[in-house]
């Protein structure tokens, strides 16, 4: 259980003259649902983007599944990308493709599966995330925000990744859909044994789903660990964000 999937060691991020991260350290273990929290603008999403190689960082080391992202080779990086799935805030479905085509794209590109097999996998993934098979022929512009997120999750899960990154999975959803999405995430972890890293602002979702959290504040990690003993930390953000729950 204590097999580290992601290790972040002394990561620094500097945009022009603005320092975003000044030495972040954290470890994410296999099978965890791990949250990146912090005030707006603290660089949670930036850190997530750095982990998935969308953005370069200015210093330090990030290791994902044992690969050091600073020295990773092109071919290794391509392989690594097939071992994770990423859900973007607004889904980021390819707007020229239907939901089914979106989900089958990685399968078509990376595997030699037959058309029939691919169709079956797509139908399974669509139902797994709680969409109907009949939705598969719709284009992203024809569906609601909640459905886009579910479809985005289905695409992220298409290749059966070990690691799933979620960028604010419940933001912009109504409370009922948001709770459904939390349940979905917990279920998927049970079913597929996923390791999930998410950025979230949704307090309810944080309490319901996360095993461990890292709180980024003032350019550093203010706290890393379970939510149980978070009240002992002296940070203005933690006191205001989690304040109500202490009393």
């Amino acid at each position: 259980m204590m097999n580290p999937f992601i290790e972040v060691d002394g990561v620094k991020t500097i945009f022009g003259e603005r320092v975003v991260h000044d030495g972040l350290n954290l470890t994410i273990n296999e099978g965890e649902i791990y949250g990146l929290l912090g005030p707006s603008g603290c660089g949670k999403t930036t850190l997530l983007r750095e982990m998935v190689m969308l953005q370069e960082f200015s210093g330090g080391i990030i290791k994902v599944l044992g690969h050091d992202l600073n020295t990773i080779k092109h071919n290794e990086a391509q392989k690594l990308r097939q071992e994770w799935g990423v859900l973007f805030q607004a889904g980021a479905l390819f707007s020229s493709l239907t939901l089914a085509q979106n989900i089958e794209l990685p399968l078509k590109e990376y595997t030699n599966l037959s058309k029939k097999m691919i169709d079956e996998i797509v139908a399974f993934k669509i139902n797994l995330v709680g969409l109907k098979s009949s939705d598969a022929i719709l284009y992203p512009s024809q569906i609601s925000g909640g459905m886009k997120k579910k479809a985005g999750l289905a695409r992220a899960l298409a290749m059966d990744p070990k690691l799933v990154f979620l960028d604010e999975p419940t933001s912009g959803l109504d409370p009922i859909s948001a709770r459904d999405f939390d349940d979905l995430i917990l279920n998927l972890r049970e079913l597929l044994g996923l390791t999930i890293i998410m950025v979230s602002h949704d307090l309810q979702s944080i309490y319901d789903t996360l095993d461990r959290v890292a709180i980024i504040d003032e350019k550093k990690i203010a706290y890393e660990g379970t939510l149980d003993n978070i009240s002992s930390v002296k940070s203005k953000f933690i006191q205001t964000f989690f304040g109500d729950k202490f009393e």
Partner: protein
Amino acid sequence: MEPLLNISSFDDKLSFEFRGEFNLYTISSYEKQVLNVDFKFVKKVEVNLYKSKLFDTAAALFIEDLKKKMTSKGIKVDILCSNKDTLGTLKLVQNQNPHLLPIPKIEKQSFVYSVGKSAYSNYLGFISFMAFMGKLFATKMIYLKKLKNIRYKEIAFEINESAVRALGIVALTSFLIGLVVAYQSAFQLKIYGANIFIVDMLGISIFRELAPLITAIVIAGRSGSAFAAQIGAMKITQELDAMKTMGFDPYVFLVLPRIIALMIAMPILIFVSDMMGIIGGMVVSNISLHISVNMFLDRFGEVVAAKHFFVGIVKGPFFAFLIASIGIYRGMMVKDDTQSIGFNTTKSVVESIFAVIVCDAVFSIAFTNLGI
């Protein structure tokens, strides 16, 4: 009730009685009256809000300002009020006020500073375009090593999308240009009785210069801008990021197919443009110079060498590369705001037409010096 300010004085005490609505809409009328008051011998000011209504935060700020002004003159201020809401509003403003920092003004930049800044940003823009070209080249090297890596389906799709569908407009534009050029010169040639030379003139000018340029301009306006807008929109919706995390290099999936497709299609479009331009010229020659089609074609075969045709066609892939790569580069430069799609699309058209004309000039010089 009309906003009304009763000012009464008693010894060294001045009393303001605000009556009626006291809010955003009425403050200015109160303000004028207060400004006219002479505070010379006043020691104490009484602000009476008993009869004011609809008191808002702006009014509270006004009172707070008045109070500050008076206090700095050594005048004591009493506020008389019984309304709970009004008192609450006053309290809110009072509590907030000491923390208020004035909003900083945007500093005006000196001329030299702004010139330097824009020069530097142009320099950075050039560097980033070079980086784009480098990435393009590297991707090409990696992926075109094996034939199976070429994405035929996407290339075919793009050829249809950005070239086949443009055939109509290219043909029509070229036909009209041929017509116009022939018509203008027919008039001049008639004066000298040199009617038949219209064939030489049309053949050489259309084949060498006009057809490639017109095609490039139409395609830059039609397909180059479409590339910029498509890729820009994909960037805003994070589709490009999604592709990258799935291991689909956007350069392979989006950039190279578009560039290759346009490079293949452009010579064909120029060929169509050649034909339509000449047909346009032929129509005018027939009508206003009475040169029959047979005569026109006979003369054409005699005086217009094949090299003129090939000079025009050879320019095609170069123009196509410039148009497609500038369009795509501009699409990639789109930032996360709605204005930048429009800005970059416009830029893509302007820059690619400019680049095409510069490239054409270079070709002109080169071909002349080579004696072609």
